[in-house]
């Protein structure tokens, strides 16, 4: 076997081992959920950190995504005289794909990396061991509240992102480019289906993405070598693994939900 083939095989084996390890960690995490109910305050604190503190970046990015999308669509649709449909297309693109996917990518970059780095540093400074020594289960106290916070925050952030994107589209389309306000909203409400586009699109997808990103972030934090280099690698791995997982799962979910 050539060196390159051997290296490729090692990468594949390591990746599979990581996925298996992460699956087992998920089971530990789920089993700890009943025990973590007594740390409700910690879950709320994490919800504030990963949810409320991410609002600014989510709102700003949502606004600009909606604005640029409308700008592009307007110029393309104007060729066919179909600019009145641009609001509708913006809404469908945002609800079905851009809302949950871009929110999840931003969430991984902002909250996921912070969770990994925080837990990694807690390990490096023996804080996790100290909890163990004080008979406090770190999975129930540290991991599960962060996981649940991500799970709850993602759909909410995705809704905020989508609303801001629609607002951005309206701002450019109606206020700047002169699309009729009534047409903009009428076309949108005529086509957008609550179950298909909002529940399956925004909420379900972002719930799955929230679970995956939070799981990866917490798992990387708990399994990183307790060194500065280890923490740096773990935060990078959180972004890379989360991004790949989000895009791959988006395809799978879209295929099943269409």
């Amino acid at each position, binding site marked *: 076997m050539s060196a390159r083939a051997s290296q490729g095989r090692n990468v594949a084996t390591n990746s599979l081992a990581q996925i298996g390890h992460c699956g087992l960690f998920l089971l530990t995490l789920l089993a700890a959920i009943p025990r973590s109910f007594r740390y409700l305050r910690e879950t709320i604190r994490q919800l504030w950190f990963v949810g409320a503190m991410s609002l600014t970046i989510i709102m700003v990015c949502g606004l600009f995504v909606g604005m640029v999308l409308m700008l592009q669509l307007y110029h393309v649709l104007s060729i066919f005289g179909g600019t009145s449909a641009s609001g509708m297309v913006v809404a469908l693109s945002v609800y079905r794909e851009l809302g949950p996917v871009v929110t999840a990518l931003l969430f991984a970059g902002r909250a996921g990396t912070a969770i990994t780095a925080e837990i990694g*540093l*807690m390990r490096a*400074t*023996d*804080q996790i*061991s*100290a*909890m*163990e*020594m*004080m*008979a*406090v*289960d770190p999975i129930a106290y540290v991991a599960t509240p962060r996981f649940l916070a991500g799970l709850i925050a993602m759909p909410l952030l995705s809704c905020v992102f989508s609303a801001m994107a629609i607002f951005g589209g309206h701002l450019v389309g109606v206020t700047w480019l002169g699309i009729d306000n009534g047409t903009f909203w009428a076309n949108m409400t005529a086509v957008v289906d609550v179950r298909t586009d909002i529940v399956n699109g925004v909420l379900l997808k972002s719930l799955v993405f929230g679970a995956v990103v939070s799981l990866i972030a917490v798992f990387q934090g708990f399994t990183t070598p307790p060194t500065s280099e280890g923490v740096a690698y773990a935060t990078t791995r959180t972004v890379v693994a989360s991004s790949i997982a989000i895009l791959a799962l988006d395809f799978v979910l879209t295929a099943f939900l269409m």
Partner: protein
Amino acid sequence: MTDPVDATPDDATLVRIRGLTTVLGGKTIFDALDMDIPRGKITSIMGPSGTGKTTLLKHITGQMHGDAGSVHVDGREVAALSRQGLYKLREGIGYLFQNSALLTDFDVFENVAFPLRQHTTLPEVLIRNLVLMKLQAVGLRGAARLMPNELSGGMMRRVALARAIVFDPQLILYDEPFVGLDPVALNQVLKLILTLNQTLGITSVVVSHELAAVQQIADQVMLLSNGKVVAQGDPKTIADDGSPWTRQFFGGEADGPIPFRYPAGDYATELGFAGAAK
């Protein structure tokens, strides 16, 4: 399921270690180690760096398990305990970490209050008073609202000490408690360890390199080297027992039965002088 309890727990011995063998990364840390830590006494574990003193504390608290042998704490075999059993055992153990391990999200007060909040339903006023009493004992009542990053290394150690004793546990494990303390703080910490032992009968295990400090408080000293207890006795006289281990360790000599140099190949060969010597 109830956790197994030794049929004949020894009233005089709180921690009993028998035949403990641990190999980490190919290196033998403990080689059939036997050790008894008496109840209600202050025992100091001494030994050269890297000899496994902190690892020994981790075995006592169930953070690590040996490859062979047993560790019994208060009649319970640590390796055989369930997770709940282990946590129950740890509720009765205070542990002072070498690097303090304060929770960086919380201020000094909340760090000390943390075990109380997790394991009791005491009213807030009682928690407050207990925490302030412990902080007063380590001289940091005035620093209650400072964050860990605002403390010096010595202050962090004293906060960690207050946290370790907040429950008045039956056993306290001190991992290098005297490092980074100025003479005044050192004296107060020594007095505190002694007071806890004398007034509450708390068993203490002190891992330290500082013989002068240890001599003031310890009832017995155990010198650990090459995975075994190589000398044991009264702290006042152990340095003069005449054994090669105590002579080398307390005399600070490089050569002797306690290895100073990490195993390595031939020095001249590694420097490239081997050929020139021929």
